[in-house]
């Protein structure tokens, strides 16, 4: 007997006492919890996102669509970045105001190549206000997962309010599980030393979020 069959047989014997009433999954339990917490206007939801991002040490910036290129150029300059990783589908206008060397996202590059890049600029798939979370789904304007992992400085652009939802349940509804997802809530951190939170371990130690409004 294969281990697969062995384990499945053990499972069936173990739950033999449980009546199989055939209750379908949809009616098997109550989802008595809330779809979102509290009643907020759209503007308040965006404010909450900014507040929670900042609470976990992300640096939050606000601008209009017209100011975006200048904002990104300023952030890269302030950081002193010489190179920036660029997802294949990033709107070229976003980087129109900077002279920093572009490093296109490429499957041929090794992780060590990427380690020499100073910054990365991406869009996101959705942002969750209640938890201060950005979700990346590998779409062309976000690139491969490693692109936002190896460089130490990540600038993430969120279109507000279109990309902002209130809650985790609403966020999951918008996401496609077939895509590889990265949920980011603040810069890399650890609680491993005396259960106290310290920012900055392996992921980007600086996370800058640009909330861009009006297009």
């Amino acid at each position: 007997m294969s281990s697969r069959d062995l384990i499945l047989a053990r499972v069936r014997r173990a739950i033999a006492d449980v009546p199989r009433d055939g209750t379908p999954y949809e009616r098997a339990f109550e989802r008595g919890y809330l779809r979102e917490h509290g009643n907020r206007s759209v503007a308040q939801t965006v404010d909450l996102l900014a507040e929670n991002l900042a609470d976990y040490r992300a640096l939050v910036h606000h601008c209009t669509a017209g100011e975006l290129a200048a904002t990104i150029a300023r952030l890269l300059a302030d950081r002193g970045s010489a190179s920036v990783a660029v997802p294949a589908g990033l709107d070229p206008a976003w980087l129109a105001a900077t002279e920093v060397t572009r490093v296109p996202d490429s499957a041929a590059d090794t992780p060590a190549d990427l380690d020499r890049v100073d910054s990365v600029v991406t869009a996101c798939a959705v942002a969750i206000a209640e938890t201060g979370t950005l979700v990346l789904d590998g779409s062309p304007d976000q690139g491969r997962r490693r692109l936002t992992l190896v460089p130490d400085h990540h600038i993430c652009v969120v279109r507000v309010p279109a990309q902002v939802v209130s809650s985790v349940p609403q966020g999951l509804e918008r996401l496609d599980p077939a895509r590889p997802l990265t949920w980011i809530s603040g810069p890399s951190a650890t609680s491993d030393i005396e259960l106290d939170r310290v920012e900055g371990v392996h992921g980007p130690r600086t996370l800058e979020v640009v909330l861009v409004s009006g297009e």
Partner: protein
Amino acid sequence: MSGGTYLGMPAFPEAAHEAVRNQTLRGNLRHATHTIRAKRANAVAEVSDWAELREAGKQIKDHTLRNLDTYLVRLEESVTAAGGTVHWAADADEANRIVTRLVKETGESEVVKVKSMATQEIGLNEALEAEGIRAYETDLAELIVQLGEDRPSHILVPAIHRNRGEIRDIFAREMGAWGRPAPEGLTDTPAELAEAARLHLREKFLRAKVGISGANFMVAETGTLVVVESEGNGRMCLTLPETLISVVGIEKIVPTWQDLEVFLQTLPRSSTAERMNPYTSTWTGTTDDDGPQNFHLVLLDNGRTDTLADEVGRQALRCIRCSACLNVCPVYERAGGHAYGSVYPGPIGAILSPQLRGTGSEIDASLPYASSLCGACYDVCPVAIDIPEVLVHLRERVVQGGPVTREGAKVVVKPAKGHAAERAAMRAARWAFSRPGALRAGQRLASRTRRFHPRTLPGPGRAWSDSRAVPTVPAEPFRDWWQRTRGGNQDRTQDGTRGGAQDGKDAAK
């Protein structure tokens, strides 16, 4: 099973006895657990529907366990359809053999690991080492444990028993032997220690060809795996290598993508007291040109189906490994994680280890007693595991023995050694309570000899009476008093107050 029991581990009382005398350990644990307790309470208070989320989490897990065969098969189908390969491991040895073979097939002799309870449980690092494969732990706390040749003492923070000074010393002393040495003049500030770990592990991440992980959740419907983490070491291991091997217990399934909306709210708040942990990765099979191109999922039983067969104990399989129960437990706070003799310490470990491993060893037979039954663990559990209920159930198993399932077969275990006096006392009580005449004679004898009763108990009872008053036997047994006074109706003194011999304190004067 191998790997699960630390060899030569003494029973909990002896191990705890040593631990509570270690002042540094107690200070470290007290500091850490009290820090996280207050934070968790705040994080939970932020969501008004915590009770409903907890109930939904419990019901989703129960429904999954009741239909586990169906969901396992569905998961296998969806992972396979998404480009992954599914392996099944009945026990630790089989899982270790599968992973070792998969690593060897890549031609590599080193792997990077994300912190995983399942691989700790099966002793994977030791099994790989024996085959000449070096496994690098990349979680900060696991790194501290690995470099210090130590054992983990907490589910979430395996090095919780170490303070910053000890961590500094371990890094300064050991990092050089494993790769890049710690920076000169390393201090004990947490930020500097984190920086040292970043530099030390960077080169390992960048050259790694094989990553090994566990998973917090597996979604049957979509074949998606989920890893919840903080540092980014998880993302490194899950995305940079060419081959990813995930070893996951079969109980980690949830039916649908939507079910994650419950656990992604309850897990971070329960474990690190955060609204959301810094990084969560989800992946479904493989993605062309992004991340590992070879993905293997090893589904691990290793005592889980035996646990599932126990009608009371199976609720332990709802556990999402948040470790909130460790942080609130007064016994864990004082004894520390090592005393539990298992990778699963604390209240959840006290019910999980004796079920996964059986109650055959001294340490496992003692674990159900490693609790004051105060119930704080149940209160904080985000999937409402009634840990005290299972503890009492397992104590009964240890004392009385009885039918259990081991490696899929129904067997009858004998009562554990060391409980003979308790069993004799219970037998005597059963005999006496079922014979009213004997009970009455015994009670009268006790009442008449009460003047000679000692104030402390002799023999093994002495420890009990050291800190407690031995109850006084009344001058007249209750049943005699009831019969004589017809329930108190004819037992009034002249001034109308009730007298009676049942008041032991008065009669003793």
